[in-house]
């Protein structure tokens, strides 16, 4: 699934590189002919901007997937019976949970090398890849904490019942504890996904060609006319709203349903 997401990113990123240069061309055209209405400008650039938006979604999905997997591991680390594992996992969770996302993004951008060499193979690490890592860090920390909270919210009787039935600790966690945590974690996890999706525009600050970067480029290409500012950025906002609002609705519905049942 991650591999698929990364492939998608690669494709979008590659396809978008020439497109990223494209806005430079129409500048002369825009200055010679009569200024277009904001609506036609938005419509003209919508395909490019939507491509950028897909890039945002791909980054969010990939970092959510990566962050969820690592976060579950970190969360299990937090409840480890080995004291040092628990302490270390707790520390990483708290550290990444209490750092601004932008800081973590910078951190990933500048700490991860632009390529790695394993033997004779050199793998380039493009910016979008680093951005995925950067966003996966807060996801990881939040998922870790969600898992710990969900586990703690289960009655201790669940552990005791499993223990008295001769389950090992590992069996108890996998067969009895985690399945019950999924339901509890799902709504806040979806919330987290919405937040990370909206945060992906931060990647524009470090030069990843996502929707906001493209919006700025388009705006500049259209001569930076002030009356285009609202429509162009409004379109970006609308895209995020149209994507995140249904998720938020679904989250609320799930929350209500789970609350009634348990």
């Amino acid at each position, binding site marked *: 699934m991650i591999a698929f997401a990364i492939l998608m990113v690669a494709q979008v990123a590659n396809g978008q590189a020439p497109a990223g240069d494209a806005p430079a061309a129409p500048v002369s055209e825009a200055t010679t002919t009569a200024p277009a209405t904001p609506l036609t400008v938005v419509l003209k650039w919508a395909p490019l901007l939507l491509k950028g938006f897909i890039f945002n979604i791909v980054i969010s999905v990939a970092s959510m997937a990566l962050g969820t997997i690592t976060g579950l591991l970190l969360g299990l680390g937090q409840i480890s019976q080995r004291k040092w594992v628990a302490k270390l996992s707790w520390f990483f969770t708290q550290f990444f949970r209490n750092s601004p996302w932008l800081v973590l993004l910078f951190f990933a951008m500048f700490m991860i090398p632009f390529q790695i060499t394993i033997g004779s193979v050199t793998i380039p690490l493009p910016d979008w890849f680093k951005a995925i890592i950067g966003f996966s860090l807060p996801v990881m920390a939040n998922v870790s904490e969600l898992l710990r909270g969900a586990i703690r919210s289960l*009655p201790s*009787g*669940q552990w*005791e*019942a499993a*223990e*008295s*039935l*001769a*389950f*090992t600790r590992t*069996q108890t966690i996998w*067969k*009895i504890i985690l*399945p*019950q945590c999924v*339901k509890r974690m799902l709504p806040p996890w979806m919330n987290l996904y919405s937040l990370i999706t909206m945060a992906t525009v931060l990647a524009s600050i470090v030069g990843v060609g996502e929707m906001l970067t493209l919006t700025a480029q388009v705006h500049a290409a259209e001569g930076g006319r002030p009356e285009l500012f609202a429509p162009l950025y409004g379109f970006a906002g609308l895209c995020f709203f149209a994507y995140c609002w249904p998720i938020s609705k679904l989250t609320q519905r799930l929350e209500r349903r789970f609350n009634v*049942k*348990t």
Partner: protein
Amino acid sequence: MAAPQATSAPAWTPDQPIIRVKDVHKSFGSFQVLKGMSMDVKKGEAICIIGPSGSGKSTLIRCMNALVDITEGSITVENQEVNDPNLDKLKLRRKVGMVFQQYNLFPHKTALQNVMMAPINVLKQDKKEVEERAHALLKKVRLTGKENNYPGELSGGQQQRVAIARSLAMRPDIMLFDEVTAALDPETVKEVLVTIRELAEEGMTCLLVTHEMKFARDVADHIYFTDKGVIVEHAPPEEFFDNPKDERTRTFLGQIL
């Protein structure tokens, strides 16, 4: 005979006590909960443990399946010493079933799945065979027709009977019951007690912590009365109820009957 430290115990034979509790002490931090309790339980006996709240009844039976470690003294279950750092707790727990006051069913599994879980995951038994046995066990506790209900869809009494079936599915030699009817409505208490009584009559070794005096009198072979971490007295039920020796027992029975 073998030294008490020996890890490999002499094979247990049914004429020996199945559980032997000797001078067991248990502290939580500096708080002493058990202050030297002893008892012998023979195979097939039904033992009731009664006593005021906080006297250590739950702690005592939790020591018997190593849910709680004892601080001092000795408990052997089929000659296996429980107070042994090398104890194979899982092996012990396969022999000793436990039912709790709060049922503690797994809410994400149906009644049938609850019963099947331990044999499949712990004993790695064949699923088909386990399923057949689970159906039989649910029938035994009179829950035929409820196999596919989740715990949340069952009454307290029904849940508790699923919990009993779940424990029995491991084919234990001993069953521990910790106030299993204390959370139930008066009407549903009976259906659970009937199930336990049948078990006892079939020869299952049962240890029950209970406040059901009538049940204790009818079903128990022996009654232990605990107070403040010690066993104050123990006797067969008639003697215990009709002729209690200790002042504390008389006070307790006076309050409760």
